[in-house]
């Protein structure tokens, strides 16, 4: 009798003799489901997954990278602790960055305000009320110079959450580095540059898909030649999950976006092995610890297969799914906000046990406002405690071989590949987004999740159970309302003092190039260097490319 057969026999015996009489006396709880809404088994055994160590898991740093992208993982160095920050003016954000670096943070992550993300100047009427609110306001290179004042750009790596206007902000970063005497081949960092998930979930798109994809491939090409250490895209499942998707949907839609970018770049004649090594990913870490660990492992294995089998990548680096993680903002509660520290700690463990390369931990007060300095420090300390005290970093991929983790890794992979096949049949991700398929799938999951909370089928501690009367939280961070005026004044001065003839001629050149098909990055770089504003550059491109209109799905 084989091992599996003997386990099966034993399982049947257990069910009959031990389990059934027990259940008759003590029934189980209901609603024990995964985020896809499917029942989680009572118990996982070797019967629940097919073992094939070399093919499915293998060793860390080797195809299919299930156990991690590097051969030593956190035994060598920890993940990069990178807190996303930015608000108000460049001066205030610069102070916060210097504070975070002093507290032991190892990389910067810049949050821009919405006008910057959507390509409007601070003095544009649509910017009213939004300047400096969810991030720092950047109008011209002058603001970027202040933002990174006294921060050596050859020493830190900087991640910038910027998408539709990524080309402009990257150009500004390159220009600031040059002014510091740091050449473009020395700077390290990431731009999010993932427009597809903006259409799906995050909403800071500007142009329609086609010119947006062109800008993205322009950046891939420009950076492969000039900024070789830059991660040119961070293909993001984070916001897809925040919008309410399941874990499997997060993986599926993110990798489907990744496939679309690779196809676009390959179509323009780029070699997959030239740019694929600079692709990076960005995932969410939710509360369901074990499902999340399985999700990260499944995503790594899937991407390796996609790159190898679908795109014929040859370099190992091209097949490695390197990712940033952020803990799930949508799980934070406004009620009893200190409880959020515990949620974030669990999510941190999920990210680390899942093998993340960098991590942002949310602060306890983020369901109420932007975080205070104290709250951000606790969030950073949470990472440091997991890194230095928890012990989970001593060995690689410690949950591998758990019957549940392996079965769940397989399940998420299967579910996600089914979605990817379906999307391919629709004609790819752009078509699937334009038809509203992806948005609808996410919304249905979100609706179901929220209704479970409404009905009490899903318990959120402090929200629909264990509530208590509490006084309003004191000392929340407020962004000063005068920031908009300050920013508008500053922009006015820059526009008066710069060489406006040059600005006009560069913008004209950009307009002409946008109509053709040359790489726009060199001219955008030229434009930022003469202090053309983000609004001027984006409006020039708007004039040629037009604007995307949302496909509303309810």
């Amino acid at each position, binding site marked *: 009798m084989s091992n599996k057969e003997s386990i099966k026999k034993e399982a049947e015996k257990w069910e009959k003799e031990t389990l059934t009489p027990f259940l008759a006396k003590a029934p189980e709880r209901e609603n024990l489901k995964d985020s896809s809404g499917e029942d989680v088994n009572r118990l996982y055994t070797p019967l629940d997954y097919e073992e094939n160590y070399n093919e499915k898991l293998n060793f860390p740093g080797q195809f299919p990278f299930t156990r991690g992208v590097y051969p030593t993982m956190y035994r060598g160095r920890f993940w990069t602790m990178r807190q996303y920050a930015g608000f108000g003016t460049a001066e205030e954000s610069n102070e916060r960055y210097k504070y975070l670096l002093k507290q032991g943070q190892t990389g910067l992550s810049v949050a821009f305000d919405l006008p910057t993300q959507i390509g409007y100047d601070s003095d544009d009427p649509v910017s009213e009320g939004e300047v400096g609110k969810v991030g720092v306001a950047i109008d011209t290179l002058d603001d970027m110079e202040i933002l990174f004042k006294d921060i050596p750009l050859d020493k830190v790596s900087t991640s910038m959450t910027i998408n539709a206007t990524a080309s402009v902000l990257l150009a500004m970063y390159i220009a600031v580095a040059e002014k510091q005497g740091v050449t473009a081949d020395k700077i390290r960092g990431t731009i999010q540059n993932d427009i597809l998930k*903006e259409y799906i979930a995050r909403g800071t798109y500007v142009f329609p898909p086609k010119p947006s994809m062109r800008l993205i491939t322009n950046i891939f090409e420009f950076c492969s030649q000039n900024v070789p250490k830059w991660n040119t895209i961070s293909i993001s499942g984070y916001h897809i999950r925040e919008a309410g998707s399941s874990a499997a949907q997060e993986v599926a839609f993110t990798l489907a976006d990744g496939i679309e970018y690779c196809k676009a770049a390959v179509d323009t004649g780029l070699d997959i092995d030239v740019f694929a090594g600079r692709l990076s990913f960005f995932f969410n870490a939710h509360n369901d610890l074990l499902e999340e660990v399985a999700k990260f492992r499944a995503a790594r294995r899937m991407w390796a297969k996609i790159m190898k089998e679908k795109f014929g990548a040859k370099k190992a680096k091209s097949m490695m799914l390197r990712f940033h993680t952020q803990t799930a903002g949508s799980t934070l509660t406004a009620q009893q906000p200190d409880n959020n520290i515990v949620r974030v700690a669990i999510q941190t463990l999920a990210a680390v046990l899942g093998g993340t390369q960098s991590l942002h931990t949310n602060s306890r007060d983020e*369901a*109420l*406002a932007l975080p205070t300095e104290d709250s951000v420090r606790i969030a950073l300390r949470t990472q440091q405690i997991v890194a230095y005290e928890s012990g989970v970093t001593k060995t690689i991929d410690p949950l591998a071989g758990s019957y549940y983790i392996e079965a769940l890794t397989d399940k998420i992979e299967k579910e996600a590949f089914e979605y990817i096949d379906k999307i391919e049949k629709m004609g790819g991700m752009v078509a699937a987004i334009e038809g509203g398929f992806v948005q609808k799938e996410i919304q249905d999951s979100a609706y179901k999740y929220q209704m479970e909370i409404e009905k009490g089928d899903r318990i959120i501690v402090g929200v629909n159970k264990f509530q208590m009367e509490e006084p309003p939280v004191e000392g*929340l961070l407020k962004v000063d309302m005068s920031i908009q005026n300050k920013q508008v004044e500053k922009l006015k001065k820059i526009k008066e003092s710069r060489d406006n003839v040059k600005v006009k001629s560069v913008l004209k050149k950009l307009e002409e190039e946008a109509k053709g098909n040359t790489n726009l990055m060199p001219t955008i770089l030229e434009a930022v260097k003469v202090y053309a504003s983000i609004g001027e550059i984006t409006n020039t491109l708007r004039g040629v490319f037009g604007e995307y209109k*949302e496909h*509303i799905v309810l």
Partner: protein
Amino acid sequence: MKKKIRILIAKPGLDGHDRGAKFIARALRDAGMEVIYTGIRQTPESIADTAIQEDVDFVGLSLLSGAHNVLFPKVVEELREKGAEDIVVFGGGVIPEDDIPFLKKKGVQAVFTPGTSIKDVVDFINKKMNEKN
């Protein structure tokens, strides 16, 4: 037959977080109301115009970017200027407790913060509807 309650759910400003707005829109529709959803990035003026054109009883605003103190009162003002002050405006999102008295003074009749049950929103709407009739 009793007229169905008509409601516009709108996203003013540049904020793209629409999970809450879409949930509320769908849940109110499931509760028997006629719901119109604007989509993201609406100006206060266009929200007021849509509200009037669609002849709604309520406008529900959702915003998570922190621009509520500027944009919510603007929607109320626009409606007043266009002679539609009978339309009840309420809001929701990441809104600090401290800002709520200001918003109410400016004519936003209720503010729902994270963790609000849909039942509270429905109760508010029904109560206001009874006051109107």
